[in-house]
C-alpha cells in the first residue's frame, strides 16, 4: 500500500466511486438524477422511516411506540448523512437518541398505563377528526413545499436538484473544492454563523433552555408535595399498603450518628448494603 504519493492522483469532482467492483459513473449525492444507487438507498430508508412513524402511532404499548420513534430518529440521522451533513447526523443521534429518548422513557415511567389498553385506539368520534386534521396538515406541508416562492434571483429550494456552491467571503481557494471544505468543516461554519450572524438567537436559545429547566423544576416541586413515596419506586401491593423494594440510599446517617429514614415510608427494609453502614 503506497500511502505517501496520493498527490499525483488528483481525481475530478465527478469521479467514480467503486462499489464492490461495480464502477458507477457519477455516483454523487448532489446530482440525484445520475446516482441511481443513492436514489435506491434514499427510497429504502425513507420507506423504513414511514413504517417506523406508523409504528409509533399504532403501537399500543407506550415503550414500543417510543422505540419506534427512536428508530425514526435514527432514520433522520441517516437522511442527514445522505445529505452529507454528518455533523447534523451526529447531533441528531446525540440529542435525540441519547437524550430525548431517555426523557421519553422516563416520562413513560411517570405514567400509570404503559401497556396502553385505554390510551390508544378509541372511538370513531375521536378517530375521524384526528384523521382529518392529519390529512389537512400533510396537505398544508405539501402545498408549502410545492408553492414555495423563491428569493429573487434564485430557484425555489424545492426545485434544486444540484446543490449550489457555498460562497466564501475570502473567495475560493483555487487548490481546493469549496464544497468539500464546507462539508469537511461544517462544525466551524455552524459556529461562525452562530456566533456572528445568529448571535441574538443563540443567546435567546440559552435563555429558553434555562426557562424550560426552571419551569420543569417549579412544576415538579409542586408535585413533590403530593403523597409520593420518596425512595426509588413504590409498589402497590394488593392489600393496599406501600412497600419499598430495596432502593439506593435507603437509610441516611447524619454526622451526629443518628439514623433516620428519609420520606414517609411505612415499611423500611434494612439490607446489609454498603450504603447503609456507617461508622
Amino acid at each position, binding site marked *: 500500500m*503506497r500511502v505517501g504519493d*496520493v498527490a499525483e492522483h488528483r481525481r475530478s*469532482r465527478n469521479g467514480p466511486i467503486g462499489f464492490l467492483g461495480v464502477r458507477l459513473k457519477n455516483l454523487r449525492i448532489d446530482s440525484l438524477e445520475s446516482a441511481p444507487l443513492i436514489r435506491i438507498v434514499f427510497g429504502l430508508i425513507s420507506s423504513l422511516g414511514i413504517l417506523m412513524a406508523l409504528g409509533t402511532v399504532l403501537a399500543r404499548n407506550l415503550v414500543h411506540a417510543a422505540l419506534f420513534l427512536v428508530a425514526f430518529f435514527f432514520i433522520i440521522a441517516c437522511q442527514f448523512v445522505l445529505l452529507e451533513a*454528518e455533523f447534523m447526523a451526529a447531533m441528531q*443521534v446525540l440529542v435525540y*437518541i441519547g437524550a430525548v429518548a431517555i426523557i421519553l422513557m422516563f416520562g413513560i415511567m411517570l405514567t400509570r398505563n404503559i401497556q396502553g389498553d385505554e390510551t390508544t385506539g378509541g372511538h370513531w368520534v375521536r378517530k375521524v377528526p384526528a384523521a382529518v386534521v392529519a390529512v389537512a396538515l400533510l396537505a398544508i406541508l405539501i402545498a408549502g413545499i410545492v408553492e414555495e416562492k423563491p428569493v429573487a434571483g434564485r430557484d425555489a429550494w424545492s426545485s434544486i436538484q444540484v446543490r449550489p456552491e457555498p460562497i466564501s467571503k475570502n473567495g475560493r481557494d483555487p487548490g481546493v473544492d469549496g464544497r468539500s471544505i464546507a462539508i469537511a*468543516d461544517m462544525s*466551524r461554519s455552524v459556529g461562525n454563523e452562530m456566533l456572528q450572524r445568529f448571535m441574538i438567537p443563540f443567546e435567546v436559545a440559552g435563555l429558553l433552555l434555562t426557562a424550560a429547566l426552571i419551569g420543569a423544576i417549579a412544576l415538579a416541586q409542586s408535585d413533590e408535595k403530593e403523597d409520593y413515596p420518596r425512595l426509588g*419506586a413504590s409498589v402497590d401491593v394488593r392489600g393496599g399498603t406501600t412497600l419499598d423494594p430495596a432502593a439506593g440510599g435507603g437509610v441516611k446517617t447524619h454526622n451526629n450518628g443518628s439514623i433516620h429514614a428519609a420520606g414517609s415510608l411505612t415499611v423500611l427494609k434494612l439490607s446489609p448494603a454498603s450504603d447503609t453502614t456507617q461508622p
Partner: protein
Amino acid sequence: MNLAFSTAWPVLWAQQATQTAWLDEPMLLGISRQWVIWIAWLALGFFGLFPGIVAYMVWAERKVAARFQDRIGPNRVGPLGLLQPIADAIKLITKENIVPGSADKVVHLLAPVLLLVSAFLTLAVIPFGFGGKVGNRLTGLTPIDLPSGLLYLIAVSSMSSLGIFLAGWASRNKYSLLGAMRAVAQLVSYEVPQVLATVPIILWTGSLSLVAILNHQVEFGWFIFSPPGFMAFVLLTIANIAEVNRTPFDLPEAESEIIAGYHTEYSGMRFGLFFLAEYLSVFSVSCLGTILFLGGGSLPLFDLRDLLSDNTTSFVFVNAITVGVFSVKVILYVFLMFWIRATLPRMRVDQLMAFAWKMMVPLSIINILIAAIWQEVVVGHNLNYIPVFGDTFRGWLVTVPLEIVAVFLVFWIHRVTREDSAPALASARRPAASLVR
C-alpha cells in the same frame, strides 16, 4: 502557529479527501482498494481484535484483582490460566437461554444487541496508529476519519443508556427496572461532565476530527501537559469510569441491593453480550482518553513522523511502533481502572448524583473558560511538555492558580450547601462533626 493549524486543517482535510483516487483502483478481483481495506479492518476487528481484547481484558482483570487481594487468580485452564476466557465462552454458549415468561421478548433481545452495537460503533473513528503522511500531516491508522469524529464517538456511545433502560424494562423484574433506572440516571448525569471535559481539546485543536487531534498533539505536545488539559483529563477519567459502570460507580449492578441490576434476567450468552459490551466500552473509553490527552501513538520528545517516508517498509515499521505505544498507553489506562476498582468501595446513590451535578459539572464548565484563557495566553506557541519560559510559562502562571481556586471554590460550595450535613451543622456547629465522616 496554533491558529494557523486550526484553520488550515479543514482545507488539508478536504484536499486529502478529494485526493483519494488511489483508493478507487481495483485491487483484488475487481474490488476497489477502499473496500479491501475496509473488509480487512472488519475481519481483523470482528474475528481477532474485539473478541481477543475482551477475553484477555477479563483475564487480566481477574489476575490483577487477585493480586490486589493476595490471591493467584485463574491458573487452571492452560498456562497462567490463559485459556480461561475460552472455557468461559464455551460455558456461556452451552448454557440454556432463559427468558422470563412475563418479559417483553422482542425488547429483551434488542437491548443487549443495542448495547453491543453502540460499543462497536465507537471504535470506527479511533486512530490506533500514525497511518501515512501527506505533507507533514498524518492520516491516522483508522478505518475512517470523520470530520466530526469526536462528536460521532460521543453520540454513538450515548446510545448505550437506552440499551440499559430497555434491558431493565423488558425483563419485567423489579430489581432489573430499579437497576436500569438508576443506571440511566447515573449515565446521563456523568455524560454531561464527560462531554464538557472534551471541549478544551476542541478549543485548542479547532477540529472535531480525532486524526486532527492526534496531529495537533504530535506537533505541539500532549494535551495532558497543561493545567486545563490535566484537569480535563481527570474529569474525563472519572466520568469514563462512571459511564462504564465500574466501581466506585457500579450502583446499577450493586449485588447486595438489587441482585445484578438491569441484567438480572439475562442468562447464558445473552448475559455474555452484556459482558462483551461492558468490556468493549472499557476499551473504547480508554482509547478515547489516550487519543484525547495522552497523544495517541506518539512518543514524547521523539518525533516518529521523521521515520515515515513513501515506501511500504517505513509505513509498516512506524505503524507497528505507534500501535505498540498506543496499546501500552491504553493498557496503563485500563490498569488504572482495574486499580480503582480494586481499591475504592461503592458510592452511595445520593453521593453519586451530587458528585456529578454539584462538583463535576461546575468544575468542567469553569475548566472550559480556563482553557479559553490558556488559548488566549499561549496561542500561537507550543503547548510545551514542561513550563519553560515564555508564553507557556505565562500560561501556567495564569491557569494554575485559576484551577486551584476553581477546585477549592467548588469543594467549598459543595461543603457549605451539603444538605445531609445541614441539620447537624445547624443544631450544633461542632468542629468534630466533619472529622467523624
